[in-house]
């Protein structure tokens, strides 16, 4: 999109003629001759792009090929040898789903990942949408300061909030003798992980959605108010439908973030509720040479983000850009 508007400059007729012939010349050039030239000049760039793309794919591609190879072959020869001499099997996948540590298998950690990711995406999204509307369209005292406060929270690194959060979960909060919050048991429940992901997502989510919600034309909302709609009705009938693209893109982003997270899982998802990233990291550490298990396990972990990405790619890229250009 160009911000520059063409301007009609006063030009004398002879110059105009020259310009017009120049344009025609350009047009003519644009056709067959230019196309050949373009194809020639693009070849170098294309080859370079292709090489980079291939180099970029090798790590995952090697993993993918290996995950279908016999376990002895994986331990002894490189995956590229099987391209010329293919013999593939699904045994690794069958075995990896059953393997794991003492409290959870890869198959059930995959289910855990889903049980962690979906609420950890929806909870912050709902809360942030409400807050974003209030910050954009409801007037109240101290709003600006509150918004700046939420905005500033974005720079708090997740890593620094982990220690206090863990001690909060284990001790709770009491004022005098009254428990405000009595803590959450550490094992066997997902709520710690959900809360952790929610608070890390909230400041950014509120900020992004606020940008989007505040760009809705004022006339739309004023018209609704004239018709007697309250804030609740405006939010559910107007704001939510209009911000669907932004909500969708943030949801995808948060989904991938939570699914791929390792650090929060290491600290807050103990024992039987561990997600697949944690279990894979554990197996890599303890049985680093079990390539046949890990290659298949890695692909089990990648499948969901791949599906989400390819199904909703359009929203995803838009969401990333919303975060960057408004910042």
């Amino acid at each position: 999109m160009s911000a520059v508007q063409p301007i009609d400059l006063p030009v004398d007729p002879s110059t105009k003629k020259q310009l017009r012939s120049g344009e025609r010349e350009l047009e003519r050039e644009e056709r067959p001759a230019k196309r050949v030239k373009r194809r020639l000049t693009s070849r170098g760039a294309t080859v370079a792009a292709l090489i980079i793309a291939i180099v970029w794919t090798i790590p995952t591609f090697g993993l993918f090929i290996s995950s279908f190879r016999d376990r002895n072959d994986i331990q002894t020869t490189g995956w590229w040898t099987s391209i010329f001499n293919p013999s593939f099997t699904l045994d690794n996948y069958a075995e990896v789903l059953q393997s794991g540590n003492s409290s959870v298998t890869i198959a059930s950690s995959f289910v855990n990942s889903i049980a962690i990711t979906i609420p950890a995406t929806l909870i912050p999204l709902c809360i942030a949408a409400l807050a974003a509307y209030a910050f954009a369209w409801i007037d109240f005292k101290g709003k600006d300061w509150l918004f700046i406060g939420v905005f500033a929270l974005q720079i708090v690194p997740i890593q620094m909030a982990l220690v206090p959060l863990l001690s909060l979960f284990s001790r709770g909060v009491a004022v005098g003798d009254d428990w405000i919050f009595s803590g959450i048991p550490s094992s066997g429940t997902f709520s710690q992980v959900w809360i952790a992901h929610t608070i890390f997502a909230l400041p950014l989510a509120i900020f992004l959605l606020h940008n989007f919600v505040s760009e809705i034309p004022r006339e739309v909302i004023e018209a609704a108010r004239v018709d007697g709609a309250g804030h609740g009705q405006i939010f559910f009938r107007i704001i939510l439908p209009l911000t669907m693209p932004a909500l969708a893109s943030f949801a995808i982003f948060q989904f991938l973030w939570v699914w791929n997270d390792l650090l929060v899982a290491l600290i807050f998802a103990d024992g039987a509720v561990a997600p697949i990233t944690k279990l894979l990291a554990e197996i890599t550490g303890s049985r680093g040479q079990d390539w046949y298990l890990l290659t298949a396990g890695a692909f089990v972990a990648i499948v969901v983000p791949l599906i989400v990405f390819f199904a909703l790619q359009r929203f995803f890229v838009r969401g990333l850009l919303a975060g960057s250009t408004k910042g």
Partner: protein
Amino acid sequence: MTASDTRPARRYRPPGQLGGRGPIGGQAKRRLTIAGFLLPALAILVLFVFWPMLSALRLSFTDASGFGQEEFIGLDNYVEVFSDPNILRAMGNTVLYTVMFTPLAVILALVLAMALNSPRLPLRGMFRTWLFLPFIVSLAVAAFAWQYLLDPQVGLVNYWLQTFGIRIGNVLQDPVLAMPTVVVVAVWKNFAFYMIVFLAGLQDIPSSLYEAAKMDGAGPWSRFRNITLPLLNNTTGFVLIIATIAALQAFDQIYVMTGGGPYRSTQTVVMQIYQSGFKDLELGFASALSYVLLVATLILSLVQFFFTGRREKDTA
């Protein structure tokens, strides 16, 4: 015509308030409405962010260890942070990581964004998606994929190097090569995100500027230097900030690939926070280290914020 005339207006402008009295009557009902919208977010942020951070600040002045009584020990934890050679090493490693990661990722992202923005490249959409794929893979899985690639027995890298007669053994157990390796993994995974951001910035630059410059006889380097770079100022500033902050928080692939080793050569600040806070249960000390990381992040954000702000004024 100066470059700034064509800068698209994208500064955030607050929408302002709805005029007049709406049909929502009554002060009490009004308050209830506001509370309904804001309370969930504020309650969660206060209870689970503000309160823990305040209590961490208190903890950082104690010798809290998860067991028994904690005692107030003043600034001892902070003194230890800045005097313990292992912690200083971790800080140095974090700086080293950042100094390698940020320029590498940002320059690669800019170069490839410009290549993908060129109309001469066919199948641009496909290349963009292709390069973007590592970004959606978990860093823990990416770390594993690279570990497999670098394996001395069955890894592709060693196989190739051996055909050239080079033997490097296991780079992850080499105190010099381990750090660059974990940086490469992060660049491999994350640069595409910065590339997409650059692409958006590039697409906002009017192509007429390049055409005009071409007519004036400006070469490719001059066009890059005088059009692309100044007009990408905001984008570059943003990318630098997020890349630097991401680098300060390096953890996942280091945890999986080296565990901080060999000989602490990849032990970063966040690895150290994890080690102190969750393995050694030195909560007080880990809190102090966390606050040092927070202050470092804050300073960096402010510096880069003012830097990009000033540059913006210069070009305006």
